[in-house]
């Protein structure tokens, strides 16, 4: 690993929603251009950790450093795809308008020609051109996710945070996504949350198991036995046909 400033760093970070700690004493360092995956059981604190990285939550104890600064100051350089989006299904808004939000920088003003070109490029890359004018609410869960990934990429981020990018996507989209992320991770720091070890295995440098605390493992060490231990129960493996080997693991 290069000895530069980390893209993301947690020092003894704890956060609780009530009495129970969602994450406790997490120490974590993610280097620039590293791709890591957060795995762990539901409610283990993965999404909480992402929100702490973004400054959407303030830690009860410890410190989170994003790109060398405070998350609230640096988060405009981050692309984020939430796991689930609560939006008004009646709001008339189409795919392109959602992706355009990635170029939003200030309260006042309209997108420049450059902004529009960047949005178009991202939409091409994720095969969204054909549905550009469709209402966002009319899309399937997987398509919506793809649009939200496009929105995160339209930011031209230095750090990309994806909360379960494969939760609802179909095989085609997933393959496309893998391709895209492979290309991206040459230049970007990518942190993704996933239960899908097969998806992850081909992409990431490291797997971090989050279960209130965080424990880092090189990807080669992540065997079905290790996963079983993390998830605290048997997991089932599903063969993925669109790329070789691996298993699909669910807690």
């Amino acid at each position, binding site marked *: 690993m290069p000895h530069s400033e980390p893209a993301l760093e947690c020092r003894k970070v704890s956060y609780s929603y009530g009495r129970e700690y969602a994450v406790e004493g997490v120490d974590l360092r993610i280097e620039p251009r590293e791709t890591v995956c957060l795995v762990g059981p539901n409610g283990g604190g993965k999404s909480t950790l992402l929100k702490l990285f*973004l400054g*959407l939550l303030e830690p009860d104890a410890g410190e989170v450093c994003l790109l060398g600064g405070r998350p609230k100051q640096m*988060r*405009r350089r*981050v692309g*984020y795809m*939430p796991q689930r*989006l609560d*939006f*008004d299904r*009646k*709001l*008339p*808004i*189409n795919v392109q*308008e*959602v992706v*355009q*939000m990635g170029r*939003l*920088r*200030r*309260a*006042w*003003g*309209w*997108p420049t020609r450059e902004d529009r070109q960047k949005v178009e490029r991202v939409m091409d890359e994720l095969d969204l051109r054909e549905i550009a004018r469709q*209402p*966002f609410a009319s899309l399937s869960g997987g398509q919506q996710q793809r649009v939200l990934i496009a*929105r995160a990429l339209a*930011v031209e981020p230095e750090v990309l945070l994806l909360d379960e990018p494969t939760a609802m996507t179909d095989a085609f989209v997933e393959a496309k996504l893998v391709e895209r992320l492979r290309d991206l991770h040459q230049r970007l720091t990518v942190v993704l949350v996933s239960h899908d070890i097969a998806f992850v295995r081909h992409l990431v440098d490291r797997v971090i198991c989050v279960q209130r605390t965080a424990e880092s493992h090189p990807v080669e060490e992540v065997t079905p036995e290790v996963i079983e231990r993390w998830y605290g129960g048997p997991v089932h493996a599903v063969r993925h046909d669109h790329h070789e080997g691996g298993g699909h693991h669910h807690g």
Partner: protein
Amino acid sequence: MRGEGTTMGELFSLLGDPSFGFLRLAFILALLASPAFGMIGSVLVVRRISYLAGAIAHAVLSGVGFALFAQYKWGWTWLDPRLGALGAGLLAVALLAAGRRWAADREDSLISVLWSVGMAVGLLFLAATPASVDPMSYLFGNLLLVTSGDLWWVGLLDVVVLTLVVGGYQSLRALCFDATWADLRGIPAGRLYTLLLMLTAVTIVMMMSLVGIVLVVALLTLPAAAAERPAKSLGQMMGLAALLCWVGSWAGLSLSVMTDWPSGPTIIIVVGLLYLAAHVTRWR
């Protein structure tokens, strides 16, 4: 609609009659106010906060009452009731914004307080002002309250609302769709929200004289709610809502003149019918 009423033909000749200038003013006022109503109403509807507009509208009466009282008691002739209304509306917005920041879990109580206390204060001031205008005029609107000064006032506010909504359209839309994202992108969501409520207060004051403060919220939200489904974008929804607001208020005004019904309730009934029609066609 004959008998005591007026026919359509007579309505047109009344509009041209110099002694019925107030009628012309009412029609022009409704036309001028429609763009602001369509734009602000749409945002209130998609953000599901039209109840806030209700609280602001009712709080406005305290300002109207105070202005009339001050004119009578201290001779503050400069304090126009509309100015008082705007002041009270903005004060209500300040309280709502403060409440959201420091007591978000008590927002509903704050809304009820503004709603009822604002109205009570207004009614007391009006009661203490002899020979003042009938409170009913402010509550439910009165064509005779419209003056030519209103038109300049509404025209100016229209320009302000239009400029802000067009210039801030991108962030406004992001805020309606995904407030967390807007926040992440550095959009000052709290300040924009307060600005939106301030513009709401301004639009309410615009049409106060024509439909009254009790009914104005319906004119703000019903056209927008009817426009939500057919519209393909937020901008289209705003345009369509403005159109429905204009058509509804002109049809309501015409009906009101022809039947001699009070203008405010008639306009609201027509707008309500437009809203119903939009939903019936959806069920087909």
